[in-house]
Structures are given as structure tokens and as C-alpha cells.
């Protein structure tokens, strides 16, 4: 009896707990994605730009002329 009651309780609680789990994980993923985007966006543009044709010389990145 007790096991049946506990299993029924877990059924409805399990669904809401899973929903909370998904929400927590998606918040965690968004936070990590924000940090990655914040630090990695400009380096990504520089990497894409240095690999485009005609390939510029790395010295041109710091040369002001």
C-alpha cells in the first residue's frame, strides 16, 4: 500500500521535477552560451577573417598603417 501511494505520488511529482530539471539545465546552458559568446565572438571574427582569401598577414592585425 505504502509503495503504491509513494509510486502514485512520484508520478505527478516526477513530471514537475523533470520540468524543473529541464528549466535548470536550459538556464545553465544559456549562461554558459552567454559566457562563450562574450569571450569568443571577436576572436571568432578574427579567425574567420584571417582565413579568408586573400589571406592577410598576422602583422597587419597590429600595424596601424
Amino acid at each position, binding site marked *: 500500500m505504502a509503495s503504491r501511494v509513494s509510486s502514485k505520488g512520484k508520478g505527478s511529482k516526477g513530471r514537475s521535477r523533470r520540468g524543473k530539471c529541464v528549466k535548470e539545465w536550459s538556464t545553465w546552458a544559456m549562461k554558459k552560451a552567454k559566457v562563450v559568446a*562574450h569571450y569568443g*565572438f571577436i576572436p571568432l*571574427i578574427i579567425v*574567420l*577573417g584571417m582565413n*579568408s582569401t586573400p589571406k592577410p598577414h598576422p602583422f597587419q592585425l597590429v600595424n*596601424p598603417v
Partner: protein
Amino acid sequence: MGEAGKGEKRVDYMNLPCPLPFEEIQREALMSLKPELFEGLRFDFTKGLNHKFSLSHSIFMGSTEVPSQSKDTIKIPTAHYEFGANFLDPKLMLVGRVLTDGRLNARVKCDLTDNLTLKINAQLTNEPHFSQGMFNFDYKGSDYRTQFQIGNNAFYGANYIQSVTPHLSLGSEVFWLGHQRKSGIGFAARYNKDKMVATGQIASTGIVALSYVQKVTEQGSLASDFMYNHMTGDVTSSFGYDYIFRQCRLRGKIDSNGVVAAFLEERLNMGVNFILSAEIDHLKKDYKFGFGMTLGE
């Protein structure tokens, strides 16, 4: 036979031109009446490494206004250096700007297919909960455009604009703010001929905006705009001019709030531009003058 020779072409309603995107309906009026006025010194240097990739360095020293409750304007002197990188491909455009305090301004525009475009706009800060981002999916049809937006804070929006005649396009937008459970709907219309553009927008947030731009000569156009905010009872009307000469571009405007502004961009040499900006608010006695130089294309 005689009527056909009068010079009026029959309108082919199956073959209308594609309208401008919904957010650019008032593009001509915004370009003429809202230049980027600033106060202080501005120096921008853009260095192109190849025709797709360029870096930019930007220095600003001046005052920025802080919104205040009292009628006085509060200005805080600020100075910052901004480093930017641009990658421009026919199908992919990446623009990033980072400031000395760690704020990042990112714009991505990617053509997923011929008609479908993804645009991402984000301002990321180091402080938590202050970052903003917006994803836009644009679909361009033969004579219509539609856009779907998803933003942070559970913002969802959609808009649709359709060419109705070769000169008139009508559009509407809806949006929903998740966290505040607010929604809104708006309508817009744009009528343009060769030398004039008239637009009108009305939204359920209580905003009515009208604008009219007329090209008076080869070099110049006049623009006027009217905005009414029903919630706050604000009414603003402005009138301005925009003249493009061979070596300079001069824009000026006067406002119903007692603000007179002017913005001059003068081309001194190939790739060297000199900028002067002035904004005089007679009612608040706030005088803002700025000067700067822009090097590079």
C-alpha cells in the same frame, strides 16, 4: 488605342515590387532627422585587411547624459576605447564591438537560403541580468516580407508587410512580452513615389508616428515627422533638411521641444572625414557640441 497612348501603364498586380522591411519603413525620415549626435571628441579608425575583413578602433571622450527625475540634465564625463572587427561575406556578416568596460555589441546576419535570413543582435555585459539579445528570422517573398523575433525576457514578435500597389505597402506587427504578460499590435503604411515618401504607424501601445520626406533638388531633401504618445501625452514634431554635396553631407533639424540640431560630415581627403555635431536645447538650456574624425572607409 488613344487611351493607351496617354502614357499610363496598366498595373500588374501579380508583379509588385518587394517592400522594404517593416523596421525600415521610416528609413528616409530617420536618416535625415536622427543623425548620431554626440558631445565631445570622437575618433574612428577603420583598417581593412582585405575586402571582407576589417578592424576598427574608436575613441570617445565626452559627456553622456544620465536620465534624471528632475528637470536638470545630469551629464557624466566618460571616455572609452572600442575595438571592433567586421567580417562581410555575401552570405554571412559578423560585426562585433567591444568596449573597455567589457561590454560586447554583436550583430550577425546570415542568409540561410535565398529568401530566409537569420539576424542576431546582442549586447552582452559583465553585469548579470543586463545582457540583451534578439533573434530575427526574415522571410522575403515576391511582394511581401515577414519576420519573426525572439528576444530575451521572453519577448516574441512577428511582423508582416505587403506591397498593395507599386507605390503603397501596408504592414502590421504583433508582439508579446512574456514576463510582463503584455501584448501589442501595430499597423504601418508606406507610400512612396520617385521624390517623396510618406509613412504612418500606429500601435496599441498608444503611439502614432507619421513622417514625410520630399526630395526637393538633386542634392537635398526636406523631412518632417510627428509623434504622439497617448500614454504620456507627449507630442513631438520635427522638421529637417538633408543636403548631400560632393564633399560634405549636412543635416539639420528643429524640433517642437525647442531643440535645434545640426550634423556635418565633411570629406577632407580620400578616407578622411571630419565631423561636427551640435544640439542646442533652448528649453532645458542644454548645449552639446561635438567634433571628430573618421579615418578609413
